[in-house]
């Protein structure tokens, strides 16, 4: 069964579809780092845990290269790993 790329959600945090990802690649945004910054995939609360692999797979198909050979900047750790309210980070004297 072929699914409509307009209806396939690649990034559930930011509601980005497969069609938008393919359009971006077609327009010359040919790395994960650029697509993230163009479409916000991976910028939501999950930090790319689901969408990143899906986007990399699209890029691998486009470049006809294995995922390990795609241009990418090493991932930086960007806490908190789960969304956490400000009140949880207040210094003790303020609590």
């Amino acid at each position, binding site marked *: 069964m072929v699914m409509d790329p307009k209806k396939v959600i690649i990034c559930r945090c930011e509601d980005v579809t497969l069609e938008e990802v393919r359009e971006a690649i077609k*327009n*010359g*945004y040919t*790395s994960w*780092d*650029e697509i993230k*910054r*163009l479409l*916000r995939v991976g*910028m*939501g*609360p999950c*930090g790319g845990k689901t969408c990143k692999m899906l986007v990399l797979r699209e890029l691998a198909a486009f470049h006809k290269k294995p995922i390990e050979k795609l*241009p990418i*900047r090493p991932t*930086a*750790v*960007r*806490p*908190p790993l789960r*969304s*956490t*309210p*400000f*009140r949880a*980070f*207040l*210094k003790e004297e*303020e609590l």
Partner: protein
Amino acid sequence: MSYDIIIVGGGIQGVATAYELAKRKAGKILLLEKTFLSAGSTGSCAAGIRAQFGSEFNVSLMARSLQIFEHLAEELDVTNDFLELWQGGYLVLAYSQAEFDGLKERVKVQHRFGIATEVLSPEEVAYRFPRVNIEGIYGATYHKRDGHADPLHTTFAYGEAARRLGVEIRQWSPVTRILVEDDAIQGVELADGTKEYAPTVLLSAGAWSTALARTAGVDLPIWGEKHEILITEPWERVLDPMVISFSRGFYIQQRPHGSFIMGLPPVNPVKWYDPEEFDFGPNSDFLSRMSNEATHVLPFLAQVNVVRQWAGLYEMTPDHHHIIGPVDEVRGLWVAAGGSGHGFMFGPVMAEQLSKWMIGEPMDIDLTPLAFRRFKEGKLVVEPAVVG
């Protein structure tokens, strides 16, 4: 391959200048970026744009930059939604009488350049911005055309427009050396050993410029200073202005996307000149200091979720102003870097004026006081309104 101009660095400065040069038919242009467009200081910045500066020089530049931002969508054939242009103003809070008096002096300068900044009492702040906690505030200034633009999308939009005008943009292409012979620019060498030639090279690589300039025998006083910042989950619009304090250092704004973006300066800033030293690692002390400041001035934030923190580099200079213009020691070498925390907001106007300078057209705002030679001549440029 040879070009008329090679630009090193794909942040706002390099990409916008490439566009402005191409628009003025400056010839064949190659832009080289180490990773991807907006990857450095541009892409990690807080996205603020403001004309509330203190020196005539900066106010006149930012008055023009705001004008450019206001018409940028049309200029680059995108939409304001894409640029995430939001003019909800900057609300600058004063936490002492002396600070309030200083802000009021700056407002006089701003008015001379058509920047209609208002002076507000604490009661007026409470009435107009009911989310803001006025405890400890002596007054504030507010300019409604200040605000926000997305640095990533803005850079991408300049990049696409530059490409349409024939600029060649090569990403994932780190420059390792500037080639000089008989005190004149020859071109650049890339990490893979290839060489590209041009009689003019513009170095716009932010804090990375210093190490590159050294390969041409030029010692730029630009260093990287680590600044941390965070972003929250998106909310419906509840806060219009960027809320900032020069004395406490915080800046907090709700983006058009709905998330709140905010930062605070480092407690013990360290000067990094060598990219080997650059460290973008997260710091939990920032998270707790930021939470205390943010929930104090905007108490509703206590229940908002933080999604992510990151670090970027202010590209600092001794007088907190860009180094922009030709380098006298090497014929054909130009620099545009050192925005000292303001590189994104100044990007469009610096690119516009610099492109005129590079092709020998008269500038509308004279940038020559910002040339590298000011350090030799001891003519530093002073700006009182800096945050962080």
